[in-house]
């Protein structure tokens, strides 16, 4: 049993999401560095960017290696090394609904927010705001949808009106 536990704990268990974020940082830094160097090699242009980029790439690479070589035991450290299987199952059951929320609701909310920004550009501020508020309430499981619709309409109207008084530049509206 002890040998089995030992084998399981030393098995490589990389966190690919984390590695993806680090890859994004490295890629972004490389693109930015390339763009900077194609502009000019003058010291004034690279005095900060070159050392900072180099440091970011080195630090991120070290993190990537750490993540790639991460073992199951290191991943389990956060839960506590002495937890028994029953407790782990209990914990898993407890966090399962939260996992579901995280894996479905949060990405859905992100997509909704992105569509809302697009709606501001291509539809109108007031209507997009109403739609975003209403759908966000529905997405979060609001039961009183009629009240939600009234709230969304009122807030969309009040904010659009307030913005039109406050800013001197035009923005598209459908109703107000």
């Amino acid at each position: 049993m002890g040998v089995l536990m030992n084998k399981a704990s030393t098995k490589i268990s990389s966190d690919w999401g984390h590695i993806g974020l680090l890859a994004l940082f490295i890629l972004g830094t490389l693109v930015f560095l390339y763009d900077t160097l194609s502009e000019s090699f003058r010291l004034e242009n690279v005095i900060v960017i070159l050392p900072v980029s180099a440091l970011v790439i080195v630090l991120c690479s070290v993190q990537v290696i750490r993540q790639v070589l991460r073992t199951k035991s290191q991943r389990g450290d956060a839960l506590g090394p002495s937890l028994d299987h029953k407790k782990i199952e209990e914990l898993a059951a407890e966090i399962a609904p939260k996992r579901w929320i995280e894996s479905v609701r949060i990405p859905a909310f992100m997509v909704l927010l992105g569509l809302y920004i697009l709606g501001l550009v291509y539809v109108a501020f007031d209507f997009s705001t109403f739609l975003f508020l209403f759908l966000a309430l529905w997405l979060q499981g609001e039961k009183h949808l009629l009240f939600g619709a009234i709230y969304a309409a009122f807030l969309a109207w009040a904010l659009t009106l307030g913005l039109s008084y406050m800013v001197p530049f035009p923005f598209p509206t459908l109703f107000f």
Partner: protein
Amino acid sequence: MIDFAALTSAFDILFGSWQPWLVVLPGLIIGLIFGAIPGLSIPVAMAVFLPLTVYLDFLPAVLFLTAIFTGGGFGSGIPAILMNIPGTASAVGTAFDGYPMSQQGKHSLALGIALTSSTVGCAVGYIILMLFVNSMADAVLKLGPTEMFLVAAWGLTLIAALGSNDFSKGLIAGLMGVLISAIGMSGTGEVRGTMGVIYLLDGVPAVPALIGLFAASELFRLIGHNYIVSDEEKRKISFRQILAGVRATFRYPGTLIRGSFIGVLIGAIPGVGASVANLISYSAAKRRSDHPDRFGKGEPGGVVAAESANSSSEGGSMATLLALGLPGGAATAVMLSAFEMHNITGGSRFMSENLDIVYSIILGNFAQVILLFVVGLGFVFVASSVVRVPLNYLIPTVFVLAIFGSFSLTGNMVGPITVFVFSLIGWLMRRYEYPVAAMVIGLLLGKMAEGELIRSYQISGGQISFLLQRPIALVILALLVLSIVLPIIKGHRKNRVARKAAL
């Protein structure tokens, strides 16, 4: 130091008419509201209401704008405490401990502490302004790019303090912030990292990015919860707790006074202001504390440090405006417009010829500070009801406010798109335990640090010996080095004592 004849005349001007006082209360309320709504910054509030000042005499006009300034300075701390969303960059440090306090159900206490620290900080700022307005102006004139770079570098050292769990993660986040701040046209005319997008020529707008990083990472995390404070008992709004916060502030006299002094000194430096002052003060408080591990987890001293510094910086920025005619930031730039609308030019001549008016402005601000405390008590009582709003409604509402606020700041879709992009980055960073605050600090100070470093390099011709000719720069450098080295020595000693005790 004080011209008593001018001071007496100032009292006559202020108390000879009711007109100057009529505008103070509305100004404070406007400032509190604009400061408390993420994205609607203090300069926006001042710019929106600037045209009204045409119909006022010079003194009421300036008092109206300083009232917005004062109210907004505190107002921006309210969403930082209640929702982890700093209303402006000057309240970033407030969120570090204010929000954990809210999550523990100590929101009323945290708001009381923030209000008192702001009030005391602002009062100290104006006292120093009254005593040393001329000498502060002289000192500001002696500051060059080298000193400014060192001040920015000092602020950047807070990144190290934030990445306490995993130093390299804090550093990665901070350095990424510095790189993002360099996007756009540099001070020397090179265009970098825009990928051909003309909207990025001016760079990534800092406040929408800040809102995205802070707000969204928190709001996305809150999806699926019912309220910010999960325990119903702790959700109660308690005026008694707000008053307890008022008393609790004075348990940190050193932090309060040090924060106020840091705020005035940093606030007086044009272009630096409250956004740096609150970070340096927070960093100093954490380093000097006997319990630095409590910071970031709901330590009241952290709120005291950040709020006292960001409020007292108002006094510092007014010193440069009045004595030199130089705006220290966007808010004082709007105030300078009010000066011009009344055909008044700030500077040494204005100071010598209108010292009574200058004293009137300072005295008027003392009254504002007292009024802020009274109005603020009521305002935080109402504002703290945010914790009782169901998150179903609060999350989309705050998102919409942030999007509208960012649009009003940039005047185009760059603001909302920035909020969206940085909201995704912030959420990912928080998920993998990268401190978003470190990226915000890099973003706020990176461009300034780069600009001042380039100017220093150009002036000095790349000679390090140039530093020896700048005594103020040497002092700042010494403070910077000490602030990094001392905690390391302190920690080393602590470990040695612990090891000895274990033996």
